[in-house]
């Protein structure tokens, strides 16, 4: 009973947080509400006995990735300039229609009996032991590839983000202006 109340609280917080990410006027509030959403999703993982996933969610997502986001928002000083879209109204309402439509479709699939019913809770426990065996045997090749991908991304980020280290390199706009003249 207590768990059920806790579960509904976390569901409410996750939906509230994700809604506020979209609605918030300032980018920094969006980022903080995104952290709230990620932490409540981690709590949902704990309620499902997925401790490994919950720990990774908190450490990697809410910790590392969101610190990167907050750092960039503060570095670029994106205080006030994050208003809602000035796009033409039909495009926005089309987007809303698309989002609601895709959500309704997937929910319809979930309740159509496509997903097999859950087994008894005793059988349903995946521990770090099973996952470690799996990624170091069957999924070894994707695991190594994803490590290389992460390395390439880190090198790419360093190369992209350095500021005017090379003298005489012009910005994209300058190149375009020269080409236009």
């Amino acid at each position, binding site marked *: 009973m207590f768990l059920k109340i806790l*579960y509904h609280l976390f*569901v409410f917080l*996750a*939906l509230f947080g*994700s809604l506020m990410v*979209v609605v918030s006027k300032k*980018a920094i509030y969006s980022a903080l509400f*995104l952290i709230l*959403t990620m932490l409540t*999703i981690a709590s949902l*993982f704990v309620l*499902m006995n*997925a401790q*490994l996933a919950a720990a*990774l969610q908190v450490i*990697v997502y809410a910790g*590392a*990735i969101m610190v990167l*986001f907050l750092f*960039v928002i503060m570095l*670029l000083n*994106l205080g006030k*300039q*994050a208003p*809602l879209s*000035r*796009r033409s109204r039909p*495009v*926005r309402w089309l*987007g*809303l229609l*698309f989002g*609601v439509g*895709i*959500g309704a479709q*997937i929910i319809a699939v*979930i*309740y159509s009996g496509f*997903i097999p019913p*859950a*087994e008894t809770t005793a*059988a*349903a426990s*995946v521990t770090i032991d099973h*996952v470690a*065996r799996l*990624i170091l045997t069957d999924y070894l090749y*994707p695991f190594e590839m*994803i490590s290389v*991908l992460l390395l*390439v*991304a*880190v090198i*790419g*980020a360093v190369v*992209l*983000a350095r500021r005017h280290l090379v003298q005489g390199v012009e*910005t*994209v*706009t300058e190149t375009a202006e020269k080409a236009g003249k």
Partner: protein
Amino acid sequence: MEYMIPGNLVVAVMIFAIGAIGIMWRRDAITIFMCIELMFNAANLGFITLAQSLGKPEGVAVFLFVITIAAAEAAVGLALFIKIFDDRENIEAEKLDLLKR
């Protein structure tokens, strides 16, 4: 535990839909990026729910891969934003139309 499985899947779908709406609703690139992270999170919630309910560790392995790709994407994307901001003092997605000219 049983009530959580369809419940979690529905929550995942709703977060995914909110993220998809946000991508089309917002104008600044960094919030669009956060909406993409929201969609990643929704997909992860679905994977973990099914992995736990069916007792299959494959779902958690896919969760690991998704989280790694999200980290790589965030690193490269935010580096690009810093570069674009250097160039034109804002990161509004609709003004990035250099390739359309």
